[in-house]
């Protein structure tokens, strides 16, 4: 079920109303049933995979807690193998086979004819964080099977995160949440904001990005640059929009999920970008891969190597393709270079105290991150190579005449105007982000005159309904991971 669909709105109202109406002791069952329904809306059979890992990890957690000595590690390894095994089969098997077969004169290993279960990487990582935390003693094993299943399957974050930690979420399923006007209205506001990002900005930018990136060789120069810049905002609006709706819909019921984005395109360094972008994944890799590899306790060059490896793995987490690995490796390389510069050429660092220096930093980081996005979005390595080599060829306004948003009627003949509305919405979003650096917009609004406040809420809803891309609700990009 897509968050940007009428079905979800009905589902959300029914589930939320039911949640507050039924007694606390049945609420876990209500939420679990709703989450199963939510997941099965995509492809029912894949719930069996979820069921498999849930059963394994539930018992693994209890066994780890009860066991002593090497047995604890054994149970942890069993759990990790089960989770990674599922990922390996459903997500990476065909990729590995394809690469092995490419070395042979003719393909000799068979491919699996399977579709990637939606959100697989998210819920397996969340499940793994549970057994790891139980093993580390940071979390008590959950004895209530239904609640544990709900921890993995809680519908707001089931298919695209945030990838939660058991310490943050599990206990919340035991707490009785009362209807709170503040939680409900704040949650709804967050959902509306997420919807604005997704359907007003992201999905409209996607039209132009898709046109160019699905056929990049037809373009050169400005169209490629614009599409690449737009993709940076498209993916941000798509993914952070999803996260906002997830956080908001959980907040309405009284649950607090971790923040996944913090205005990442205002970052002044690549490492800051990764503290602000997909926070739940970057902290997952930090806690469960980078630190176990030695963290900052190993020699300096080993640290850099580990950092690079972690980002390559992070790339692979996103998808089974060399483009994602290259994307991850590029980020790893940028971070390594940044660390080397900090160590050996500290004087090169611009003092980011004044506004101009801050803007320069932000722009440099954006350009670097956007360059990496080329690999993330391009369908093949050859496409990515073409785009990069043709970004600056034939830079002229005339080259824009080839772009479909100017030449053809996209979106039922209103493309040019809608394009302007999209850009205006994007600018508005970034203005809101800019002001959010020092204050919470929601808190600020709550102090304003109620007519102004409600006027703004009505305007936001109307803006979404009028300018949202509802013709064919587009799937969220991160669902594929």
């Amino acid at each position, binding site marked *: 079920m897509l968050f940007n669909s*009428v079905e979800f709105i009905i589902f959300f109202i029914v589930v939320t109303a039911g949640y507050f109406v039924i007694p606390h002791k049945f609420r876990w069952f209500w939420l679990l049933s709703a989450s199963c329904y939510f997941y099965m809306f995509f492809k029912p059979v894949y719930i069996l995979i979820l069921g498999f890992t849930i059963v394994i990890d539930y018992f693994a957690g209890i066994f780890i807690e009860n066991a002593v000595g090497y047995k604890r590690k054994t149970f942890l390894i069993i759990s990790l193998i089960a989770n990674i095994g599922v990922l390996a089969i459903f997500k990476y098997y065909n990729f590995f086979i394809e690469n092995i077969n490419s070395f042979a004169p003719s393909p000799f290993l068979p491919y699996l004819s399977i579709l990637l279960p939606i959100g697989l990487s998210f819920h397996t990582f969340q499940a793994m964080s549970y057994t790891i935390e139980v093993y580390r003693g940071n979390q008590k094993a959950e004895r209530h099977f239904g609640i544990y299943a709900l921890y993995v399957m809680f519908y707001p974050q089931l298919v695209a995160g945030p990838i939660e930690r058991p310490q943050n979420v599990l206990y919340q399923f035991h707490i009785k949440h009362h209807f709170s*006007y503040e939680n409900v*209205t704040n949650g709804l506001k967050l959902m509306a904001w997420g919807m604005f990002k997704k359907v007003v900005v992201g999905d409209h930018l996607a039209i132009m990005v898709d046109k160019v990136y699905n056929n990049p060789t037809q373009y050169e120069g400005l169209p490629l640059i614009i599409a690449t810049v737009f993709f940076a905002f498209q993916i941000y609006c798509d993914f952070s929009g999803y996260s906002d709706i997830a956080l908001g819909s959980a907040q309405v019921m009284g649950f607090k999920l971790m923040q996944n984005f913090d205005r990442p395109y205002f970052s002044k360094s690549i490492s800051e970008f990764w503290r602000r972008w997909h926070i739940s994944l970057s902290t997952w890799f930090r806690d469960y891969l980078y630190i176990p590899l030695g963290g900052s306790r190993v020699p300096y060059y080993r640290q850099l190597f580990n950092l690079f490896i972690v980002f390559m793995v992070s790339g692979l987490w996103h998808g089974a393709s060399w483009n994602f690995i290259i994307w991850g490796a590029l980020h790893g390389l940028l971070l390594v270079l940044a660390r080397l510069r900090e160590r050996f050429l500290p004087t090169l660092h611009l003092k980011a105290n004044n506004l101009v220096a801050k803007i320069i930093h932000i722009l440099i980081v954006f350009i670097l991150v956007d360059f990496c996005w080329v690999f993330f979005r391009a369908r093949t390595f050859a496409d990515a190579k073409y785009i990069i080599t043709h970004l600056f060829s034939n830079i002229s306004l005339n080259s824009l005449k080839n772009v479909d948003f100017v030449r053809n009627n996209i979106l039922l003949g209103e493309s040019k*105007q*809608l394009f302007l*509305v999209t850009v205006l919405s994007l600018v508005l979003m970034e203005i809101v982000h800019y002001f959010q650096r020092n204050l919470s917009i929601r808190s600020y609004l709550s102090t304003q005159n109620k007519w102004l406040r409600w006027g703004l809420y*009505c305007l936001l*809803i109307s803006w979404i309904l009028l300018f*949202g891309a509802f*013709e064919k609700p587009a799937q969220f990009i991160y669902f594929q991971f």
Partner: protein
Amino acid sequence: MRQFFIKSTLITLFVTLSFYSAFRYVRAKEFLIGSQTMAGAIIDKHKRLNDLPSPKLILIGGSNVMFGFNSPYMEQELKMPVQNMALAASLGLSFMLNEVKEDIKKGDVVLLSIEYFLNEGDDNIKLFLAELYPPAKKYIEFPNVLEDLKANCKYIFRELRKYLLLKVLSNDNHIDDVAYSRKAFNKNGNIREELRLVSHLPLNDGGPIARKSYSESITKINKFVELMESKGAKVYFVFPCLAESQYKLSPEAIEDLHQQYKKSLKTKIINSPIDSVYPDSCFYDTIYHLRSPYHTVHTKKVIKDLEQYLE
């Protein structure tokens, strides 16, 4: 909780009423303009269809039929009235079949020439037509009430958005190609010959045609055929005219559909796909829109194929 319910109900009511009132205002203002577009021709086509005596020949399909036949010539050759009901492929298969069901009588002949892998079309266009011609509401099929509601809401948002962006913000008084207006049709429901004399190359196309199962649509056509036969009418199928360049892009998919038709369609197929393929220069603006005088060439071929069955 009470406070929340009151406020949320008020805001929902306010937004819903505002949108609906704005929509009604816009539609009332734009109705005349809308009725003069190509879509407005549905009124004229249905009026003539109602008035025609049986036996008559009724042409059904998307715009390939609207451009591809010379109905007055057909009337003359077949010695029966001919009504071309086609408007656009985006009306979808169900709409096209539903809109003639009631008007077909004993002895009538239906010639079906639908575009390759024609789907259920665009709800927005169907709802727009239903506004211009209210009986068309019953030609629109939705799988359930929710889909019906969704389509209507999307239509309202889309029309308001169009009005706001094109009329209020940019004062766009764009005039459609005259070949796509209500007055472009002759009395039989074809686009008038003099309006599509020149070829506008390169033709608009939808890219290669994808091969897929068409069984659901074939079932719909078969149900329609059964109903028509129970009324004493006959249905024939003819492949749509198509530009050669498009045919060459997807010959396998087209042949696959041909085989699906041959296997499952419960009506006579009077030609084969290649019989309706013409050089690109014979087309007006898209791969399905024949220009004058090639529509007469196509018509002659179809009459020749059809005659053996009519006799």
